[in-house]
């Protein structure tokens, strides 16, 4: 496989998978919390939170990447603090690529989960409470199982978006081969080199295959879960 793709191409595929999995898994709890907040709670500044969550969807990705660099670069306040306290460096590392992908995919994830929250009948949660379930148990035993299809959809969308993220990633972490060069930036890189079109095309095939695979898996899972949730 690595022969067919070339060492550089293969490394880019593996890195993109790693980055996307981490971006999806780590943003899921935050995504669920924010979706719950937006779907169920009224608070001052709700529209501002909503706006910030959706900002990466509307801003040019380059701008998002640059903003990340301004805040989380090694000499920027938050970035320096993270490095000194936790030894965590984001800029120009694969961790930064994961963060950029997570930020870019976040609005899609939140939107899908929020819709799922809004579709849950609060009456069912009331019923669970009257049967003796404290709030968190209501959430774990009723709300969460019922929004599972939405969570799956959100996660798959986020994963697919993370696999394809380019602008913010290349701005924040550049495209260092073997370290921060993701699948899209490798494709872009090969297209800049005369005679490397074949390699670029092979990566394109891989990225189409991964995207299709993700869609099929999510479709099958979602169908199975909604069936279970709808009580059939």
């Amino acid at each position, binding site marked *: 496989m690595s022969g067919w793709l070339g060492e550089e191409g293969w490394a880019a595929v593996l890195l993109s998978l790693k980055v996307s999995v981490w971006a999806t898994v780590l943003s899921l709890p935050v995504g669920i919390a924010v979706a719950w907040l937006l779907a169920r709670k009224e608070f001052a500044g709700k529209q501002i939170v909503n706006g910030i969550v959706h900002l990466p969807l509307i801003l040019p990705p380059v701008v998002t990447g640059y903003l990340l660099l301004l805040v989380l670069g090694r000499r920027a306040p938050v970035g320096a603090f993270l490095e000194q306290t936790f030894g965590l460096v984001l800029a120009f590392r694969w961790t930064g690529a994961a963060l950029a992908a997570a930020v870019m995919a976040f609005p899609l994830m939140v939107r899908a989960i929020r819709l799922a929250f809004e579709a849950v009948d609060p009456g069912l949660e009331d019923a669970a409470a*009257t049967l*003796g379930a404290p709030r968190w148990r209501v959430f774990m035993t009723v709300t969460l199982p019922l929004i599972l299809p939405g969570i799956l959809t959100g996660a798959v969308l986020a994963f697919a978006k993370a696999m394809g993220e380019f602008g913010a990633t290349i701005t924040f972490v550049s495209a260092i081969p073997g370290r921060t060069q993701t699948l899209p930036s490798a494709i872009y890189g090969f297209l800049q080199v005369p005679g490397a079109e074949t390699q670029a095309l092979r990566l394109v095939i891989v990225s189409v295959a991964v995207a299709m695979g993700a869609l099929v898996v999510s479709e099958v899972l979602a169908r199975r879960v909604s069936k279970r949730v709808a*009580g059939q």
Partner: protein
Amino acid sequence: MTLEVQLRHQFEGFNLDVDFIAPKGVTALFGKSGAGKTSVVQAVAGLLRPDAGRIALGGTCLFDSAAGIDLPVHRRRLGYVFQDARLFPHMSVSGNLRYAARVQGRAVDQKEEARVVEMLGIGGLLARRPAGLSGGERQRVAIGRALLAAPELLLLDEPLAALDEARKAEILPYLERLRDEAGLPILLVSHAVSEVARLATTLVVLKEGRVVQAGPTSDILSDPEAVPALGVRHAGAVIRGRLVARHEDGLAELQTCGGALFLPGVGGEIGDILRVRIRAQDVILSREKPAGLSALNILKGRIVSLRSGEGPGVMVRIACEEEHVLARITRRSAAAMGLAEGDEIYAIVKSVSVAQGDIGG
């Protein structure tokens, strides 16, 4: 165990201000939609936080605005049956029934579960999902789920409203068994007089957020003063009769204080005490014992009050011993017959509906 409810709450364009006591047995909250019945039940459950008031069950205070007490819903030990069942769609019937034990962290009481399942006739449904159940089955499972929460108070919010007549007839006997066997205070929300007459021991009539009548069901149903609150069409008293014989033509003979009633389609054993509801508009009055009539059911009594409202009708309350029958006749007939309080009178009953089982009220 007694439930005391006293609360005030301001909604947009509507004030709720009620104060009543629900003793053991079934207490019906009766009134038109929008009278505030469901809000009262929600406040008792803790799903609605009233502006002010006090709600106590036995010695336990559930809510007291003055003392700053507001017990969370999950610690109120309720069984709440909602109008729309609200079964958890992602669990089997059995999962729904065992949900309370699971979240309360106690072992499933197999014996109690078997008893409830048997009483409600849901043994064949345990492995099914709620989506595949009929409305009546769903409501029975919801009742079972509430009972298995080990409640100290049952709240039934129009448990039959979403069902057609056939399904209602299917569930009513279960509710009667519940009342007789469960031994808990039950708060029942209803807007159907027939349901109330059949199930309730105590009646609280709500109108526009206030209690307009409260007391034992039989007293209120036979009180002409309560007629406007109940609705003229629905007015009618409940009297008790002992099943004394079954005749060959299929009619059952009931001995009441005012004489014999002959009714078709009556269940029960000889010797049982049954409750029959007689709608005021189904009663004809006569000064002499009628002869040559097709009607079989004639009760003898004494007029205790005549009440005329705004319409052309007069509500006549007739007493026989401790019990009462209401008759609604026109003002013109009352004048022509010269009816007065204390007169002896015969009530000819055109149709009767039976509430089986003794409520003990």
